[in-house]
């Protein structure tokens, strides 16, 4: 029996710092400033600074924060425009460098689990991990034996500090799971389908047999929302303050929690909805249907944004990773697939599981957990937010009953599991983000801090209609209405004010402004323009040809080598 080499858990010290969320585009790093004048740097003692100037910043970190897409070619622009562009670029560079510098403050490193040479980490039991880690971390592994009130659904608050769980037979409870302090515990005397924290741990939405209820952290019923009936699944979109509910009647309803209004009620036209998840990157809701499709929804559009055929049988579970890049689905055909969500929607990995996964969840760092009956498997990729490889499970764990709900705890290396035997909190080293943003979701915040944050979050609430597949598209110009306006303007004025004026030769002296020479000069300019055009089109043609050739090459490579071309090949179409 082997022991885990190292199980690293985040200690409790808290660094409060700003951390950027989106990171994709690249940029040049800032070079360390050159030494201007060595004499001026010399101190009184005559000693020289061995590392003059600001410390160098690693290139890849800076690139992470650059957002201007330079792959697009710009049309020719005037000098004034060029200046503006230059200013924008320098600004971006500066901000990304400062952001990269502040990475230094992210002191915590994610934990990990490594087997001895050739040893399978999946064989490591929870007991072994608990033995190896410090006491504080070991306390995070616990089991709640709640056999009486049926399988449980679990939900962690956004800070990861609080845990709410609802048993199917009416048991609803919320607790500060780190200190194990119970906030409230009630029995609603009705079946509980799902439970979810709203923006803070003070409010709790519970999907009960008939209606949707909202309780506060004392267990007092605040609202009974009758417009959301027979809800099966709940999702909360934290930046939009929207509570999305999927109902048995096939409706997806968005409830604005801040004003208590229903923003949109969309009919999915696909029967009972009981598979739902949200994409944390763009707040799009993913619904799984019984015909093997997954549909993506936004409250602004009445139809699904995208429909993906994922499985031959019905879809049983869907999960989207924190960067919104991958979607994991499992279906009745016992397949577990990981799809790319960046425009292609193609499966990247697929795996047949012995018994199909009923529940899926992604962790903050991209670990994928799947509940299959009474066993939980966790797969990991290499590095943060990378595609989990489904070859070998990273960890496995057996429970006392079949899994009914699972969620990774944010900012803690813990996986919460609700099953028919109660709740299990399982240690999964390296699952969570080690550093948190103290202004955004601070696990250690006080009540006052929470209130302050609440006000700020409400002020920064994103309107529901801004939810779309690509949130960065909002920073683009609406080309269609732009063109429309241009056209209208031309119509209104009677001419195109931005049209290029035809070349008019300048008048010249000493007889060089004769009609013939004027015509000649005009012709010259026209010819030049024409030549330019021809050259451009030729270049384009060449490029296309090259591309085609490359493709052909690839296809030929892909084809298996034939022994000899047959005479009958000419008849092959």
């Amino acid at each position, binding site marked *: 029996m082997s022991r885990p080499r190292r199980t690293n858990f985040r200690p409790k010290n808290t660094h409060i710092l*700003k951390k*950027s*969320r989106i990171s994709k585009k690249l940029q040049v790093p800032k070079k360390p400033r050159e030494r201007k004048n060595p004499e001026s740097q010399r101190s009184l003692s005559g000693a020289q600074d061995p590392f003059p100037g600001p410390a160098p910043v690693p290139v890849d970190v800076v690139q992470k924060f650059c957002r*201007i*897409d330079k792959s*697009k070619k710009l*049309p020719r622009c005037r000098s004034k*425009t060029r200046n503006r562009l230059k200013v*924008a670029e320098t*600004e*971006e560079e500066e*901000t990304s460098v*400062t*952001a990269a510098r502040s990475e230094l403050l992210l002191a915590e490193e994610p934990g990990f689990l490594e087997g001895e040479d050739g040893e*399978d980490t999946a064989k490591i039991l929870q007991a072994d991990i608990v033995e190896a880690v410090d006491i504080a971390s070991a306390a995070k592994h616990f089991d709640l034996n709640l056999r009486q009130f049926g399988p449980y659904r679990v939900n962690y608050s956004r800070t990861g500090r609080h845990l709410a769980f609802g048993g199917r*037979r009416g048991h609803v409870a919320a607790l500060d799971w780190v200190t194990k302090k119970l906030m409230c515990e009630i029995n609603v*005397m*009705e079946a509980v389908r799902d439970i979810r924290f709203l923006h803070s741990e003070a409010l709790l939405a519970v999907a009960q047999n008939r209606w949707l209820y909202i309780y506060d952290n004392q267990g007092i019923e605040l609202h009974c929302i009758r417009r959301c009936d027979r809800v099966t699944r709940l999702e909360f979109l934290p930046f939009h303050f929207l509570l999305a509910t999927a109902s*048995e009647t096939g409706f997806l309803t968005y409830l604005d929690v801040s004003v208590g209004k229903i923003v949109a009620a969309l009919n999915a036209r696909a029967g009972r909805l009981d598979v739902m998840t949200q994409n944390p990157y763009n707040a799009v809701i993913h619904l799984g249907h*019984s015909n093997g499709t997954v549909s993506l929804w936004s409250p*602004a*559009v009445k139809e*699904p944004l*995208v*429909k993906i*055929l994922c499985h*031959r*049988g019905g879809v*049983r579970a869907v999960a989207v990773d924190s960067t919104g890049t991958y979607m994991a689905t499992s279906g*009745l*055909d016992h397949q577990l697939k990981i799809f790319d969500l960046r425009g*292609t929607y*193609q*499966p990247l990995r*697929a*795996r*047949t*599981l*012995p*018994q*199909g996964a009923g529940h899926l969840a992604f962790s903050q760092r991209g670990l994928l957990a799947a509940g*299959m*009956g009474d*066993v939980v*498997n966790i797969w990991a990729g290499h590095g943060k937010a990378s595609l989990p490889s489904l070859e070998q*499970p990273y960890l*496995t764990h*057996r429970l006392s009953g*079949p899994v009914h709900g699972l969620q990774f705890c944010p900012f803690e290396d813990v996986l919460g599991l609700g099953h028919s035997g109660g709740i299990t909190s399982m240690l999964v080293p390296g699952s969570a983000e080690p550093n948190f943003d103290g202004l*955004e979701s601070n696990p250690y915040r006080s009540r006052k801090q929470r209130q302050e944050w609440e006000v700020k979050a409400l002020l920064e609430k994103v*309107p529901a*209609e*801004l*939810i779309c597949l690509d949130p960065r598209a*909002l920073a*683009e*110009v*609406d*080309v269609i209405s732009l063109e429309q306006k241009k056209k209208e303007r031309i119509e209104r004025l009677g001419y195109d004010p*931005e049209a290029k004026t035809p070349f008019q030769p300048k008048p010249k002296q000493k007889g060089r402004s004769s009609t013939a020479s004027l015509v000649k000069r005009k012709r010259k300019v026209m010819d030049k323009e024409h030549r330019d055009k021809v050259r451009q089109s030729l270049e384009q043609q060449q490029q296309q040809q090259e591309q085609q050739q490359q493709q052909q090459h690839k296809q030929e490579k892909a084809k298996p080598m034939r022994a000899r071309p047959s005479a009958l090949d000419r008849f092959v179409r």
Partner: protein
Amino acid sequence: MTASRAAKSVLALSQQEELVDLPEDCPLNVSEDEEDSDGERKHQKLLETISSLDGKNRHKVAERSEASLKVSEFNVSAEGSGEKLVLADLLEPVKTSSSLSLATVKKQLNRVKSKKTVELPLHKEEIERARTPLEQEVFNLLHKNKQPVTDPLLTPMEKASLKAMSLEEAKMRRAELQRARALQSYYEARARREKKIKSKRYHKIVKKEKAKRALKAFEQLRKVNPAAALEELKKIEKARMMERMSLKHQNSGKWAKSKAIMAKYDLEARQAMQEQLAKNKELTQKLQVASESEEEERGAEETEELLVPDVVNEVQMNPDGPNPWMLRSCTRDIKEAEAHEDPEELPDPVAHEVSESEGDERPVAEEEILLKEVEERRSLRRRSELSQDAEPVGSQETKDSSSQEVLSELRALSQKFKKNHQSRKPKASSVSTGHQVQREEPALEEEEPLLLQRSKRVQTVEELEELEKEECSQNQEFLRPGLKGQQLERNPNNLPNAPKEKKKKEQMIDLQNLLSTKSPSVKSLAVPTTLEEMDDEEERDQKQMIKEAFAGDDVIRDFLKEKRESMEASKPKDVDLTLPGWGEWGGMGLKPSTKKRRRFLIKAPEGPPRKDKNLPNVIINEKRNIHAAAHQVQVLPYPFTHHSQFERTIQTPIGSTWNTQRAFQKLTTPKVVTKPGHIIKPIKPEDVGYRSSSRSDLSVMQRNPKRLSASHKKQLKKNSVD
């Protein structure tokens, strides 16, 4: 069903009552013309006389059966005389007649005198003289009763009674009679009027109302007086029987015949005919009364077929949980396997039960039937749901049922059902695992609390899981990943959508391959507990077959269809401006020439290629998000000429969420910073660019010394030199 039938029979009953009523009305009709001055009736009479004027059907000698109230000289009646009264007769002067008559009258008188008077057929003496014994008898009778023989006015009894009554009483009585008669005539008139209404809809409504009323009355009666209700029910039954016997609604009537002729051409007529036939069927449906002999027959059948109807019945009785037998029959596989067995078996138990209950006690039966109906319907719905969700379960079971073993298993199952009604889990396991060792359920699961409300879907999934755990364990055991992948690959090719595949080849990615990717099964260390049981070799084969059946292609086909539809919907439509008949012949069956159509067809511009053109498993909505577009920039600001240029300048976020605090402050600093308390002078022309004196430069410098252009600096230098 039965309720509607009851309503029907009630309707029939009411109709019959009408029929019964009619003959009763008839005598009243005869004594119709009375002294009461019913204007309508008079009008009716007038119409009748007018119609009789044409001479074709000159009929009716209206007889006055009663003394008229007013007998006056002004009210001359020609009735009863047989010949018409002519006006001229009345106008003829008396004188002429008298002048003439004296002679003639004399003549007549003489003739009368000379002739021997014709004796009345029954003279008084002759009457009294009874000749035959029969006549004697009659006379005896008449005398005994003191009937007036000669003067048929009033019997002595009547006379006595008249005498006994006072005048007022008699008057009152007469008035009463008159009133009754008047009322009756009103009623008749009304009935006749209503009968004459031709609107079928009206009659339908009336009929329905009547039926409803009858039903309600029946309900009430049942509550108040069950015995009477029973009688009523019998009446209803009788009405139904009458209906059955009659030839009504059998396409043999005049109307029906005419409709039958029309039916060939007229859709409505056809429908009407069919409706009538359906009605006939409904009305004449024989209620199945399960006679003993029938039951015996059925029993014999059962024994012959070696199927287990006992199980069926028991399961049916089982309150919770749908009948697995019925469930199985719903799956499509059963049609191939046992098409000849189940359809016979299915309806029987229900009908049987119904008939039983009817036979036992009538009044309660109604309710029971209703209840049963509701239950049946519910179970049906549940069954359909189940069959949707848990197709594999069904197919699994059918496959099993082909073998004889399963029958015995089913028997065992039924016994088990008797024992514990509530748990449905063991059913699945016992059916699937067959002679496996049965896992003991945890004690907690046995006692099912009230609160537990499991949704059906979950249950089916659980069942499914349990079913397929084994299957996968086998796969894991016997199939190496590569081998399995091959099988999966081969699978779609075998299935009958080869042509579609060919078509799909044009697309870059094949949908079939995409869905049936080679996905090696996981070799997980911890296999779910239920997997530990191992099955036989043959069962593995069976399950493989199930898997193949389960991997249906309809999902793919449906999806492709949906995609095609959405593509069609998003395509821009062509505009056809052809005017048929313009410049050429037009009319029915003539189409404008293709040349013309081509000429006037405005083709819509080809839109940009769809984003999901090369992605067969994806439908991307091409609709523009208007709500989000409202928040986007719609006008390019000044120095930019192309939107991509402007987009580049707004791609970096400037909020504090995305930047460090310092960067955020720097990005959001205003261009001009003034200290608090600083006096801001109003703008002058020099500030804008009009250069009138060198002092303007100084003012600029004061405002923002960092942002000085080179020319300004030069001028500043000059100034300082000066």
